């Protein structure tokens, strides 16, 4: 019988081994997954019992607290506070009892201290009896640029609009503003019923204040897409250089019998101008014809080099800007419209900034990012971002051609943005850019969207290079509605770093 009993004791040992392995799995390996299960009442109950990490904007060299956790007097509960709620709402998002958005969402595990990289610190805190604390997230956002962007959007007078500013040399996001926006402080209530009321009101509010137009919504790029078309033409040697002549008839008859005309039906130079003139005057016929000779797939390839046709995380999710491969998209008659940023082209304001950023950085597009570094409660750096290349949009030579052309848009008295973005208009700051006035809606029945993509070149000896993209929904002319917003932002940024 002893043989059976010995075997039995091995079986018992195996049973206990299985239990030990299983609780190790649950309590050591699966903790993060279980903590993240929706409706985890323990995590829910704990989340306001200790200090959530702050969010800082450090783009101007000093830390500006844009989200903080403060102890409510006489309780053991912390409440999230946003010192500049509406200015930074598209950046921070909100932290509520039922969930997060924005940076609060993407960096949630670091801010609330559950990230495995904080485990050592949390353990030390447990042993020393200190309170658990979340990590501090430091953003690349420039408070000066962000505030100017918000105020400019507000001053514009009620059009839904968004603006994004990038440091072209690194990809750092300097400003990201959207209008209309919301006050995240009203969402930090602990009262579930009250929260649901406020949330419902925001969701149903006119103008969709919760929508982050800078990265979550796309608009037709209009003539600003000519940056891509020109880059493709230079890169494929369809056009040799900026003084090469391109045909630009007043009326371009398309293969399907439709007509393409310039804005207001105006004449483009002598009908066969240098490409640089066609660019600063933004002649549709010249670039429509150029687009047809390039073909739609080539235009799409070059748009991809500028970061289009792919989703992106900065770490906020950015919806893809697209030249979509819809049915019949290679039809030359439609390609003529694709080439001037119409037909089915759709871009985010972020993408508009990326067009300029690539050109400003000699053709190299840096990957946009917002989180500069994350610091643990002991101020040790947990995570630090270094710039990386997203793609080589164009060669430095082609980028040089594009710079000359974009310079003329703002500096040539005949350029579309001379009135609003020339050095005379900006108080001496040199800006290169491209306007767009995009028709949209069914049968182009809506008001035109105003688009402006621009940058301060390194060569201009301004304190800092910066690339900006602006889209004002229903704003009309790009130069009139969108360019002043970009100029205001750039002025504020350069002043802060001057």
């Amino acid at each position, binding site marked *: *019988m002893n043989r059976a009993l010995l075997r039995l004791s091995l079986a018992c040992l195996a049973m*206990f081994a299985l239990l030990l392995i299983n609780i190790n799995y649950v309590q*050591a390996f699966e903790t993060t997954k279980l903590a993240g299960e929706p409706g*985890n009442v323990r*995590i829910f109950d704990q989340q306001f019992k200790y200090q959530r990490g702050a969010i800082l904007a450090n783009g101007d060299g000093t830390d500006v607290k844009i989200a903080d956790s403060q102890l409510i007097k006489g309780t053991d509960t912390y409440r999230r506070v946003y010192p500049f709620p509406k200015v930074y709402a598209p950046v921070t998002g909100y932290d509520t009892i039922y969930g997060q958005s924005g940076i609060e969402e993407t960096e949630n595990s670091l801010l609330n201290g559950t990230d495995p990289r904080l485990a050592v610190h949390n353990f030390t805190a447990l042993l020393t009896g200190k309170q658990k604390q979340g990590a501090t997230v430091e953003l690349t956002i420039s408070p000066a640029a962000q505030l100017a962007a918000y105020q400019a959007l507000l001053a514009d007078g009620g059009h839904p609009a968004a603006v994004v500013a990038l440091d072209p040399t690194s990809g750092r996001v300097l400003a990201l503003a959207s209008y209309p926006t919301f006050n995240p402080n009203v969402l930090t209530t602990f009262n579930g019923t009250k929260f649901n009321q406020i949330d419902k009101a925001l969701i149903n509010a006119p103008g969709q204040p919760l929508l982050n137009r800078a990265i979550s919504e796309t608009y037709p790029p209009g003539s600003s897409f000519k940056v891509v078309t020109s880059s493709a033409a230079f890169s494929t040697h369809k056009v040799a250089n900026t003084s090469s002549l391109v045909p630009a008839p007043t009326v371009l008859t398309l293969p399907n019998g439709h007509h393409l005309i310039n804005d207001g039906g105006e004449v483009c130079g002598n009908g066969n101008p240098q490409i640089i003139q066609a660019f600063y005057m933004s002649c549709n016929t010249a670039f429509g014809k150029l687009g047809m000779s390039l073909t739609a797939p080539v235009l799409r390839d070059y748009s991809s080099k500028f970061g289009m046709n792919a989703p992106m995380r900065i770490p906020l999710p950015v919806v893809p800007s697209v030249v979509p491969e819809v049915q019949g998209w290679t039809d030359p008659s439609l390609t003529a419209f694709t080439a001037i940023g119409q037909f089915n082209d759709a871009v985010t304001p972020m993408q508009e900034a990326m067009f300029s950023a690539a050109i400003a950085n000699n053709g190299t597009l840096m990957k946009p990012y917002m989180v500069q570094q994350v610091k643990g409660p002991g101020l040790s750096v947990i995570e630090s971002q270094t710039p990386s290349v997203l793609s080589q949009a164009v060669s430095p030579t082609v980028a040089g051609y594009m710079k000359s052309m974009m310079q003329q848009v703002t500096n040539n008295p005949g350029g579309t943005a001379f009135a609003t973005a020339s050095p005379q208009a900006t108080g001496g700051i040199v800006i290169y850019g491209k306007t767009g006035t995009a028709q949209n809606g069914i049968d182009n029945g809506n008001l035109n969207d105003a688009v402006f993509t621009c940058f301060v070149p390194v060569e201009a000896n301004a304190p800092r290079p910066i690339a900006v993209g602006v889209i004002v929904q229903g704003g009309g002319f790009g130069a009139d509605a969108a360019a002043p917003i970009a100029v205001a932002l750039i002025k504020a940024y350069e002043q802060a770093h001057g």
Partner: protein
Amino acid sequence: MTAAAHADQPVPMPRGRRRTELLLLIFALAVVLFAYVAVGLGLNGKVPPGIPGYILVFALLMLAAHVAIRRFAPFADPLMLPLAALLNGLGIVMIYRLQESGRDGNPGNQVTLITTSATKLQLLYSGIGVLGLVLVLVLISETRVLARYTYTLGAIGLFLLAIPALLPSSHSVVNGAKVWIKFGGFSIQPGEFARLAIAVFLAGYLVAKRDVLALAGRRFLGIDLPRARDLGPVLIAWVASMLILIFETDIGQSALFFGMFIVMLYIATQRTSWLLIGFGLFVAGTLVIAKLVQHVGERFTVWLHPFAGSNPTGIAYQNVQGLEGMAFGGLFGTGLGHGQPFFTPLVQSDFIFTAFGEELGLTGAMALLLIFGLLVQRGLRAAIAVKDPFSKVLAGGLSFVLALQVFVIVGGVSGLIPLTGVTTPFLSQGGSSLVASWILIALLIRTSNSARKPAPQPIQDEGMTQVVRAA
């Protein structure tokens, strides 16, 4: 070695190791004391007011058990009592912690099923348990004398088991399981005691019939199948456990009965085929019943997909709360009094292990499992060392059923196997389980005493021939 050389060696006097037991017991009591203080400090930063009373009563109970062992089983295994005392004491501490949450300014939610007298009651049950231990030691001088009552105890066991099934639901159902006898404010779970009685019956029956049962029939796939006619008792046990499953909707209890039966059969006959046949029958039977009985089938769904769809807020709510609690505890736990085990329904009984996992962490939960494992291994050691077959089979079966009970409930709450409602030995709130666990330990202590007792010394040295002088 010559006889003379042998005679020169001092004969090692077997030691009872009672002093070791006392030291270990004091250590266990100290752990319980500190845990109790930690609960108070964790809850509201104060040492619990009732501390001298609770700890003194508990310490006196355990010391009484120690004295009884000293007197009636002086050669018993010195580890069993301290291990059981530690588990019992920690169980009381956790029940106190759950009882206090949400009351008298302590943070947390109130667990409505736990009354303010829960700790006192659990202490009272511990007293009854120790009384049971003492009675077993006093009344049963050797484990094997129980063999005389094989059929009497078998009948008592079956009767106890059947009562809840026969009683109307109003007197037998608590939390969906029809395993109780409930009259007025008083309720007991007869199955806990039935298991012990049936273990004695099985040991007696199997030892008497083991030669027949061990006879081989045909050989198939390398295992010796028993003869068809000898399958009778196994089939009867299988049908009985399946009937418990259906009428008392209690997979846990039926798994314990069946597992115990098969293992005792295996110890008695040494035939691996019994294990395989038994295990196969149980799994097949359970799967069929899972398809037929919704209550049982649900357990499988909850086990496989606890987080799917609306399960976390519906049928899997309890399991999910238990798992999330354990995960929240992580490696080192929140500390006693700092967690929120009260979110898990029935945390004081079936799910008490998850409360330990949450507040003492993985380290504490592993320590508890090791204590159980050690207790089981000491029981099996006694079974191996004891001479008579009846005691071997009984002690082996009881040790195994203790291990199986821990496996079924801890595996169930931690998602290793489908959850079945059995109590956690010594830890869970409730008298029946606690008293039965103490009696089980008493039987193992008694067996280990028989195993370790030195053989009676011969009156005289056989090496010497007595000289009879002729007158």
